[in-house]
């Protein structure tokens, strides 16, 4: 194996039977007919057919596996280029500098703290996150990373969030999956919100209907 290449695992040790069994637990049905609907709009006839189509994705982490394994163990693993010393989190398994010729980076453990660079207070999001609304999406520079990572910042009163505030990392105690959803950010305990400002009042007011809407949403599910 060439030292400057990522290793390619040999599949002779891969247990296909086990993998197939696991997949069978989540059956894929392919094209499944659901509905036919028709109508007239103005003087134009229309017809539409609804078809359910599902798929089970397998995300293979490959060279990123140590990062995912780290998350399972409650660790944040970033990368460091042995040539230029750049640290990045999220990790990059080859250095991003053209001068480093795609040097394979080294895994390093990141501290569970960082500085919030920017954020937004979400009043709407994808389906999987609706019940969490309104939540804060934050871009955080963890440790000495030269890149910011996006994740949720948990805070009771989101209008108090501010740029450059110190944050800490919290891992879920529930079953971890090896994805960044295993952790989130919280304000560093040493940080205290500054007094209310007109902008904070404005954000608070914008959040009010979101809280109401989520109450209704939670009741209906």
């Amino acid at each position, binding site marked *: 194996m060439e030292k400057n290449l990522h290793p390619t695992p040999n599949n002779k040790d891969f247990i296909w039977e086990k993998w197939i069994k696991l997949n069978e637990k989540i059956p894929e049905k392919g094209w499944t007919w659901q509905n036919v609907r028709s109508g007239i*709009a103005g003087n*134009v006839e*229309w017809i*539409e057919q609804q*078809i359910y*189509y599902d798929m089970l994705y397998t*995300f293979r*982490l490959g060279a*990123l596996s140590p990062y995912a394994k780290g998350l399972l163990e409650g660790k944040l693993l970033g990368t460091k280029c042995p040539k230029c010393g*750049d640290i*990045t989190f*999220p990790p990059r398994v080859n250095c*991003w*500098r*053209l001068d480093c010729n795609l040097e394979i980076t080294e895994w390093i453990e990141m501290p569970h703290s960082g500085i919030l*660079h*920017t*954020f*937004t*207070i*979400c*009043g*709407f*999001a*994808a*389906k*999987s*996150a*609706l019940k*969490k609304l*309104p939540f804060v*999406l*934050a*871009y955080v*520079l963890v440790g000495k990373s*030269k*890149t*910011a*990572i*996006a*994740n*949720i910042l948990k805070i009771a009163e989101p209008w108090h969030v501010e*740029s450059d505030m110190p944050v800490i990392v919290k891992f879920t105690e529930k079953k971890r999956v090896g*994805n*960044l*959803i295993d952790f989130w950010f919280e304000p560093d305990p040493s940080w205290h919100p500054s007094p209310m400002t007109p902008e904070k009042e*404005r*954000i608070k007011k*914008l*959040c009010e*209907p*979101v809280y109401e809407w989520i109450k209704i949403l939670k009741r209906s599910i």
Partner: protein
Amino acid sequence: MPEQQKVFIAGGTTTPFDYPLNLQIEEMVANCIRQLYKDVPEFHLKDVRDNGMVVYSHFSVHFSHQLTAYWILHDHLGLVGVPHFRIDNGGNTGGSALYAAYALVRAGLADVVPVIGYELMGSVSQSKGSEFIAIASDTRYEAMLGANYTNYYAGLARVFMEEYGLTEEDFAEIAAKNKNNAVATGEKAQHYRKVGNKLTVEDVMNSRLISYPLKKWDCCFMSEGAATVLVCNEQFAKQYSPDYYVEIVGAGLSSCTIRAGDRYAFPGWTERYGEGYPGLGEFAACRHSAEVAFKMAGIEWKDSYKYLDVAEVHDAFSTSEFQIYNALGWCQSITPKQFIRDRMPMMEGEIPTNPGGGLIGYGHPVGATGLMSTVECYYQLAGLISREHRSTDNEVKDAEVGLVNSHAGTGTSISNFILKRV
């Protein structure tokens, strides 16, 4: 060997943009071409068969429930045997397809290249649609958070706001401008079809929170539709539209990181533009591609609006339109705050931006969007607004030089074009 040639636009059409449009892709595109036959009677697809090829502009096969959907279109148009390929470059799909057509004609590999863009988005629920778009962000990271592009853009806007001391109202001005311009555009523009009336800055401020600082009216609609731009060499341009052709005098395309967080200190940009640039608040790919296009056209990046009469830019969000002004070098001699408070991008301002309505007013069926912007800019430069729009309220009189901007990801791929009336 084929010889380099100048590149022109001799026509352009769009379907109405709406959601859902209740059309299949082949009829959307057939409508565009039949309209082109009407607008440009000298043009025929046979010229494409004999002297050209087709570039298709289509973002997502998830939406089209069909891989290589353009194979259906090409066949439907009767163009079997003619070379074709499809460009997908996120939100910059339209701009990138135009870039490909430009490159083909410029290189002399083809003389007539219709760029045909389309997007179905109503094939899934709106929330699923947002999720489909969000999987253009890194699915191992950002997409898993349940955030979508509006949320990412809001985070970027936040940095921009703080850096330049901008307020929500400054962005709301842009949102209201584009919605209201679309009212003059009329039946084809989604805001006119769906809402119909003009909005005030207060309406924007009072609309529901989507992701601070973005409210509902700061964002573009989810849309379906198609658009076509007829790209050709000088000989065909003169033959097709002797009174209505424009030259593409500059074209630039550039790229940035897929994850916005990774451009905090990206080596390639810091080498080019210095430490701290672009950070999360600036669109480096927009600046870079604009610099390339401006250089070709003999325009300086700094205060480039002085050389331009009109611009159609990619305003997926009111905030990103503002960030684009900055990346185009418009806020160099005056601050961004002053730029908006002097009403520079308004119809009555120095550089009317998105007179057609932009994405916020006209709509955003991804594969067709950049082409819609091109078509609107073409109409302005060719003097076709009175023919194409419901009213001339959004006409830029005697416009000679225009800019078209197309934009993807969180600024991940961006193209800029300079069009000039001939």
